[in-house]
């Protein structure tokens, strides 16, 4: 069942290449208008294939997809009218300058010359290239080219913007500039942004929904919290309390009116307790109980799986499943827990 919204939706979208390689397998995707959707996956997982299918650069082998309400197979040209794409490693005509380059693409989009000139001035200002607008692109740094590519991608005022590894190879400042620009763009114009990335941090910062793909198959989708749950995250807290030989903290904890799992108990100068799977109400009861016994609570830290843990956990599960099927049993990987 495909959701016909003005965002992005696919149903059983599959891509097989002529050599029999299945790059994408039965992708079901639903991106709402105005979403910033982060698409994660290891190398060769099918991220670029997905973006190329959604942009009409590839034809699906089976399944359906709609972008901005248009069928990606039958209404290919209409799709291209309402989207922008910044491909990975986008090429440029190095003998042109930024203005000439954008004028050329504006003419391909049949944008009126006066409107185009105004828009180009505005875009070059926004992406921070106004001061180099008449310098040949061949002299641009990678970061400048990426910003020019971004300006080209939004030149036609797209409703949906696709970005394939937008910050790849950029320095931290360049990465931050691009992220800020995209956030502003989404906020001001409500553009739906669909981007793939290896940089988990930027996905966590930018995306309000995240999809994870591996071996051409969709592994998981949701908000960061939903993905934490899917990855097997249960809420955990770490409580550091002052050591008190007079009080048996474990006994107190085990007498609570709900079951808690004490994962870690270290008795040194302080007691370090990690409690899994709790609710806010239970947390309050726990604090009240400890305070009722005059136990000093030095620190309470809420521990969440970060995106890196979620990604490795979910993609590992899939890899393990695949390799198990091939008769290889991998040793389980411990997940690191970090405080947000």
């Amino acid at each position, binding site marked *: 069942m495909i959701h016909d919204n003005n965002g992005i939706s696919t149903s059983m979208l599959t891509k097989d290449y002529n050599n029999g390689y299945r790059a994408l397998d039965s992708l079901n995707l639903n991106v709402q208008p105005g979403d910033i959707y982060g698409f994660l996956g290891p190398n060769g997982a099918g991220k670029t294939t997905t973006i190329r299918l959604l942009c009409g*650069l590839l034809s699906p082998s089976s399944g359906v997809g709609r972008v901005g309400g248009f069928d990606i197979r039958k209404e290919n040209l209409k799709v291209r009218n309402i989207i922008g794409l910044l491909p990975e*490693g986008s090429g440029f005509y190095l*003998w042109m300058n930024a203005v000439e380059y954008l004028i*050329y693409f504006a*003419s391909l989009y049949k944008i009126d010359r006066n409107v185009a000139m105004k828009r180009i001035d505005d875009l070059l200002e926004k992406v921070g290239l106004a001061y180099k607008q008449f310098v040949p692109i061949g002299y641009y740094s990678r970061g400048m080219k990426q910003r020019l590519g971004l300006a080209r991608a939004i030149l036609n005022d797209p409703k949906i913007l696709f970005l394939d590894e937008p910050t790849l190879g950029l320095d931290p400042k360049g990465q931050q500039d691009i992220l800020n620009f995209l956030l502003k763009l989404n906020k001001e114009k409500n553009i739906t942004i669909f981007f793939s990335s290896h940089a988990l941090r930027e996905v966590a910062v930018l995306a309000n929904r995240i999809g994870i793909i591996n071996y051409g198959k969709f592994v998981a989708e949701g908000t960061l919290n939903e993905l934490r749950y899917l990855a097997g995250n249960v809420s955990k807290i770490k409580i550091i309390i002052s050591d008190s030989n007079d009080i048996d903290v474990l006994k107190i904890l085990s007498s609570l009116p709900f079951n808690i799992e004490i994962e870690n108990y270290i008795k040194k100068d302080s007691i370090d307790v990690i409690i899994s799977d709790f609710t806010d109400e239970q947390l309050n009861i726990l604090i009240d109980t400890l305070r009722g016994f005059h136990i000093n609570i030095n620190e309470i830290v809420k521990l969440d799986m970060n995106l890196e843990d979620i990604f490795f956990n979910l993609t590992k599960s899939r890899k393990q499943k695949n390799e198990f099927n091939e008769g290889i049993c991998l040793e389980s990987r411990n997940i690191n827990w970090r405080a947000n």
Partner: protein
Amino acid sequence: MQIYKHEIYGNFYSWRGGLWIIVASLIFSLVAYLLLTDKELSLLDQGEMLYTLGQIIIALGIVIAAITASSSISGEIESGTFENILLVPIKFRIIAIEKVLSVITMWGILYLVCIPYLIVLSNGTNFAIPSVFYVGIFGTILVTGISLLSISLSIFLTSSKNSVMTAIMIVLILLAPSLFFGSSLKKTDFGIILENVNPASHAINSLDSVLVDNEITLKQQNIHLAAVSIFMVSCIFVFLYCTRNFELKVMK
């Protein structure tokens, strides 16, 4: 026609882009000079001289068209610029057609450059108009066919090195009977078959019959015209097949 304009602009953007016109002019000047001043070559009658120059013009046109067209799409795929072009709401076939038109325009410029040479060499004879007309008509048909075929190779192979090499080999096969075969090889069964199926040989034989044998009417050249037209129509079909459903499969 924005892609067409862009291609033309790219071809003539700097002096380097237009260098091939200067080189072509130098070649024509050198050939014309040799034909008029060399002791042995100047013994040729003017029809033979025009025929020799006509062959060179058509051969040069074919070579330029093959090289330019065979790298036009694969070159953009390799440099990563083609993905951006494919994203604009223009059909792939239209993009390819505009690229073919830009190659034909290059032939048009080459043709304009060669006209004065043909006129000068035909001075004092009635070959000026036939030579300009037949070089124009055969050159245009052959260049169009070669452009369509080479751009199809460029689409099919998606590698500049492979598509340029293949296109040059096709050009060599087309030009071999006229330029490299001796008269004895031409008279063998192999030579006769190759000449009869080869559109470039038909074009050059037609120039021979017009400028040497003075058979200047279209009716007298209809077999040759039909042969090059069949070649062009075949190339159109190949082009239509290759541009029917393009997918950007190659990762940069």
